[in-house]
């Protein structure tokens, strides 16, 4: 199979996935117990006529397939409906929150992958020694720790007990900054704890995957071939073991995005970080269904997109995939 065909195939698969998610998403919010309109209106004494009018207004009197087509049409125009709670278009609310999450998740993920790889390689290299046992132990503990609880511990220790970092939020509300540098430093201080939490939580997972992957690669025959060439151990790691071990990590990182989002929800909730995760939490508390639906669709599309990118990357890294 050539490269274009491979990409086309992967693209089609991604599209099918998104479509299934769309259908799923659409029906999910229509099987809610009770009448969605009643949930929406939250006024038990509304008259029957008024109800019918609202029903017609939302198109709920139409057959389900017509409704579904309207829904798709709206989606194409970027219309995700409007939030009960904020009384604003869902898309606007989401877009407002994207940067905050990107900063948190982006820095956290990059640092944790980078450090995870390094730790994984070192631990695999020293396998069987004390470094391996201690490193692996710490990684497993981090992997087993709920993100929110770790965040709470961070807050309690650094913000409440030591008082060196703020307990949460992205900036102090209503404070005028003396300079741009000051503002930057304040932001950095607010960013520190959430990013630290986020990074530490995910380092463990990445390091364990990397360790197992490196050990598996080190057992391959081509490693012995490479050693038979007389190359040094460092070169062996650099040229064969690590690049080949990184391959499974590429797809793992993409699949793990779901976990990363889970982490974002927890960390943002604990640190009152004004991103998508916290938005999801408040939407849940307020039972703000249109917002939830929009968020859910948005996040899923992001993960599907990331997986597609990982597939493209993978096809460049591993010449074998195009063949199968």
């Amino acid at each position: 199979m050539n490269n274009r065909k491979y990409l086309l195939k992967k693209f089609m698969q991604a599209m099918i996935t998104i479509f299934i998610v769309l259908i799923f998403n659409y029906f999910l919010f229509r099987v809610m117990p009770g009448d969605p309109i009643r949930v929406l209106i939250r006024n038990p004494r509304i008259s029957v006529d008024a109800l019918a009018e609202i029903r017609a207004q939302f198109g709920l009197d139409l057959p389900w397939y017509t409704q579904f087509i309207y829904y798709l049409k709206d989606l194409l125009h970027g219309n995700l409906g409007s939030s009960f709670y904020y009384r604003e278009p869902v898309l606007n609310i989401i877009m407002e929150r994207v940067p905050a999450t990107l900063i948190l998740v982006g820095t956290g993920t990059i640092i944790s992958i980078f450090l995870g790889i390094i730790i994984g390689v070192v631990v695999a290299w020293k396998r069987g020694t004390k470094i391996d046992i201690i490193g692996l132990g710490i990684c497993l503990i981090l992997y087993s720790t709920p993100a929110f609880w770790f965040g709470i511990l961070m807050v309690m220790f650094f913000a409440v007990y030591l008082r060196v970092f703020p307990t949460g939020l992205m900036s102090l509300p209503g404070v005028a900054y003396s300079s741009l540098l000051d503002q930057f430093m304040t932001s950095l201080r607010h960013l520190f704890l959430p990013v630290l939490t986020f990074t530490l939580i995910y380092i463990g997972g990445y390091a364990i995957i990397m360790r197992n992957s490196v050990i598996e690669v080190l057992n391959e025959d081509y490693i012995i071939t490479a050693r038979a060439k007389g190359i040094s151990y460092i070169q062996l790691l650099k040229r064969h073991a690590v690049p080949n071990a990184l391959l499974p990590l590429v797809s793992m990182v993409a699949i793990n995005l779901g976990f990363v989002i889970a982490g974002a929800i927890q960390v943002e909730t604990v640190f009152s970080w004004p991103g998508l995760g916290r938005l999801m939490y408040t939407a849940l508390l307020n039972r703000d269904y249109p917002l939830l639906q929009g968020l859910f669709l948005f996040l899923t599309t992001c993960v599907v997109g990331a997986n597609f990118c990982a597939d493209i990357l993978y096809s460049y890294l591993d010449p074998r995939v195009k063949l199968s």
Partner: protein
Amino acid sequence: MDDRNILEVKNLEVHFEARSGFLNNLLSREVPRIRAVDGVNFNLKKGEILSLAGESGCGKTTTGKAILRLVEPTGGKVYFRGQDLSLLTQKELREFRQQAQIIFQDPYESLNPRQTVFATVAEPLEVNRICDNTKEKEERVARALSDAGLKNPRDYFIRYPHELSGGQRQRIAIASALVLKPKFIVADEPVTMLDLSIRSGILKLMMELRDNKQISYLFITHDLSLAWLISDRIAVMYSGNIVEIGGAEQIIGSPAHPYTKALVSVIPNPERSSGTDRKLLEGEIPDPSSPPRGCKFHPRCSYAQPCCREERPLLREVEKDRFVSCHLV
């Protein structure tokens, strides 16, 4: 049908469609066909051992499996004791499978690692609901094991394959074929994975079973010297076809087809000083999805004539019971 024959294979064809998913079908129209077996003809007499020899990818294993309908043939006919196998009902197919069994190459792989010896050998009886009586079943399993040359068969009952040696495992595999009392066995490279010192034991066993139980064998092998050693006749396959078939001594002693000649010449022979009179072929076997026009062997054949490039030769009887498919013979 000649009733001295237990098996007659006529124009057997197995063409695979190159595996592709739903999306691939959508994206590309042409589906390459792999011609694994491309018109194979032979007969097997009762109590005979016929070797099917050739390099990997020549279709010898697929032929064996297609005869047992473990792979569905896409063309041609197979008659077993005069019965057309393509017309069997599910029930008849089950009955056929009790008479025709297969032994695989790798005794490490052909036994389920999580089944005990008893479970493995008794399974054919259970699957075919042959005997429900536990005592009788144990009796038959024990007999099959001792027929396969294992002393004190009951000691093996609760052992697992990994506790046994390679030779013992292959005997277990043979026992699980024997328990159904078959009349015909396809032996797919049964000794290839075994050490030289164990091989002759398994081969001897197969010969004894032929003599005592009148079992006919289709012996699939890549090793011509082995084929010569144990079989009555040899059929040499190349790229999905039989190129030569005849008595074992004749095929090895005076090969007729250029391919057979080359194969015979490379049989390792320590008595010979190195390298002399070996006919090394250039290149490799053709891609089974696009075999060359004319004789499939012509690109590698040193005797090739213009007609070889155009016309595909048929299997012709050149002397009694000796068939060759070559324009030049």
